[in-house]
């Protein structure tokens, strides 16, 4: 016995996942432009290993294999790849994807049941376990100082599989703007001095010509993808807007109070993984609130935590921690932020 309605709008999980993958393409192409073949190798490795982990999990747990084809595993793999630094060795790419799928998703019951964003969970575990690898940022190819020729396939192949020795990191890597400012502040420099010594240019950060995780550097590319998501109604404006505005507001207020210690809003918004997290991670449907008010609360929470971690904690970047911490609160937020029912 089928209950009404007897027609369906035609949306499906598969369509949604493919659209998100499509929306990630600008950021992916940007990462290939910045890091050449190495980016290709890392991303391919992540996608393949996460699909494989998903398959093994489904097989072991006796679940339906149908979810293999819906693109969710490939998407998680792509996400993992995009939040990793390009210099990760092959085994870390595989480990990260496996962690995301097994620990981040399947152990909770598979698609739709995970409380935390799988890709960010994996990244946090990797960051805590292998801090050196996870905080060494290669100099992107378009910048003149680039030490590795990312456009040479055999060189990339070698870097990917034999790795860069820990001592060699200094030669091939540079600091991210966030990291640089953080270090400078601990050395009693002012924010403006730090930015000057980094030769910080906001437009460069906007386009993405700077060090960082594969997919997070280019705000422009992320915004292009986000426009697609917004246009297709796969994300709503509430979370990203609340998130970014909160960070900007906090940064502005404290920057006005003490400009030497607190970086300005523009710097905060363009730096690190904030925009990627705001549009793609915090809006992950499974781990974000469904009610509009709840989404605003969630976004504000993410913003506050991100800014606090960036400003006061030991880590230069806090966006991923913020999103995962707020993920815990989602059921509570959804419960208390239900909209007013018609006529009540």
């Amino acid at each position, binding site marked *: 016995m*089928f209950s009404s309605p007897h*027609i369906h709008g035609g949306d499906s999980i598969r369509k949604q996942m493919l659209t998100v993958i499509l929306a990630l393409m600008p950021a992916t192409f940007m990462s290939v432009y910045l890091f050449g073949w190495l980016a290709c190798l890392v991303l391919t490795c992540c996608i393949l290993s996460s699909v494989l982990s998903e398959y093994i999990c489904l097989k072991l747990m006796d679940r339906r294999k149908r979810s293999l084809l819906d693109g969710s595993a490939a998407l998680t793999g792509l996400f993992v790849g995009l939040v990793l630094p390009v210099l990760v060795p092959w085994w870390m790419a595989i480990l990260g994807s496996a962690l995301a799928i097994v620990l981040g998703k399947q152990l909770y019951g598979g698609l739709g049941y995970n409380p935390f964003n799988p890709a960010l969970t994996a990244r946090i575990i990797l960051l805590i376990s292998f801090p050196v690898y996870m905080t060494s940022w290669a100099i992107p190819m378009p910048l003149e100082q680039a030490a590795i020729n990312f456009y040479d396939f055999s060189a990339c192949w070698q870097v990917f599989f034999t790795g860069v020795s820990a001592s060699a990191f200094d030669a091939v890597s540079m600091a991210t703007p966030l990291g640089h400012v953080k270090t400078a502040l601990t050395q009693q420099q002012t924010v403006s001095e730090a930015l000057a010594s980094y030769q910080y240019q906001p437009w460069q950060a906007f386009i993405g010509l700077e060090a960082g995780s594969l997919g997070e550097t280019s705000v422009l590319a992320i915004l292009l993808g986000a426009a697609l998501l917004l246009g297709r109604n796969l994300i709503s404006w509430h979370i990203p807007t609340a998130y970014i505005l909160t960070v900007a507001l906090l940064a502005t207020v404290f920057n006005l109070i003490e400009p030497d210690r607190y970086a300005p809003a523009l710097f905060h918004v363009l730096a690190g993984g904030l925009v990627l997290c705001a549009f793609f991670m915090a809006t992950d449907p499974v781990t974000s609130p469904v009610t509009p008010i709840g989404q605003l609360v969630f976004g504000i929470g993410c913003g506050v935590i991100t800014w606090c971690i960036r400003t006061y904690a030991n880590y230069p970047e806090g966006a991923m921690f913020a999103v995962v911490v707020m993920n815990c609160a989602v059921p509570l937020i959804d419960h208390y932020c239900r909209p007013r029912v*018609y006529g*009540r």
Partner: protein
Amino acid sequence: MNLFDRFRAKFHGGIQPVEWKETANCPIQRLALSEQYILPMKQHIGQECVPLVAVGDRVLRGQKVARSQAYVHAPIHAPTSGIVRKIADNPIPHPSGLGMLSLFIEADGLDEEKKMPCLADYRNIDPVLIREQVRMAGITGLGGAGFPAFIKHRRDDEFPVHTVILNGVECEPWLTNDHRLMLEHGQQIVEGLDILMHVVGAKKGIIAIESNKPDAALNIQQCIADFSQDMEVRILPTRYPQGGEKQLIQVVTGKEVPAGKLPLHIGVLCQNIGTVKSIYDAVVLGKSLTERVVTISGPQTPRRGNSLVRIGTDLSFILSQHGLTDLSEVKVIHGGPMMGELLPNLHVPAVKSTTGLLAWHTAEFEKSHEQPDPCIHCGHCVQVCPVKLVPNELASHCKHDDTERAQAYHLFDCIECGCCSYVCPSHIPLVQHFRYAKGMVAQQAREQKFSEESRQRSEAHLQRIEKEKEARAARRAKVLAKQKALEEK
């Protein structure tokens, strides 16, 4: 819908399904008389009727054949002249396939009619009399719900009705019966609105029509122009479920009907186009409700169209008149595709709430009912819910039989419009979850009442036994005492 319209649609959420209103150009055609008519004893919300006629009686068209003593009911009338052949249980158009007591009338082909007195000069007649005429005519809401119409036509000094809204929205895909009525019977509908305004004493009449029916709107506008100054046509952007009473009132008046209250309490009377047409027929022409317009459509129907169908006509007969004779691989929906029900059995009669019959090929039909995937919390259901529920959370409570929490999430405010299921990318049948939980709550209430009554009966039983025991003991004591006394003597 353009951006401007989007801002004007003032009810929350909603969807825009493909319209498929291809029968909009098919004029209403009278369906041929059938040989037998079956009248279920309950075609309305309220108390079931009891037959007023016996097997073998001859009845005339429009003759009242069943009624109830309760206030909330609508009497039932014979759809044609003929002989009552049987009074027995018969299935009704319902997803359960279950039935109820029904009258079987064998048509004699003469179609003799018995009319009520005409109240053509209704403006000079006491509204109470007109309301009584509407009640006697057995008119229910013809939009699908089937609430007896006269109950809404109450004049209440505490809650005076200032606006009558005619619901010409017809937001369900495929259905076009109201659309055709507005095109072909505009004058009667406008006069029907005038009758309603007179009955409830309203100053204003609004006919709400969606923007996908510009011809109907134009026709009604012309009819109004040379009729009354107090009426207006309101063209609304096309959006489902705008035809829901509460949603329409919200769009037209900007007010919400408070939970647990009626439109009456905010001074509004809302009535469907088909209902108003039959109110006109009852008051001005003295005809009881014995026929209605039904849209017969769907991909599997060869000759789609709008038919004037007598209440009680067998659905398979109606379908065969539209060229659909082989019913083996066909699924038929009773009503629109969004809120209508799949019929397990097509040998059931058309009833007052039969708005449409839509035939699908079985394989095609099952495609839209895919196996559900897990919920991914995309929140689309929250965006489209016209009553602002959180359908995904609610469904999860219903699924786990947590009726208490489901009610805290306002389960009973759900109008079952189906928007949430329609947009769900995981194909979760949310509406079915809600219906199941509503049924559970009702069953729990029934069980509780039954067990309470059983407990009382059992206590009474025990008390009675106790009393009997005492009485027996007393009798024995008496006898013993007597014996003793005798012995002592």
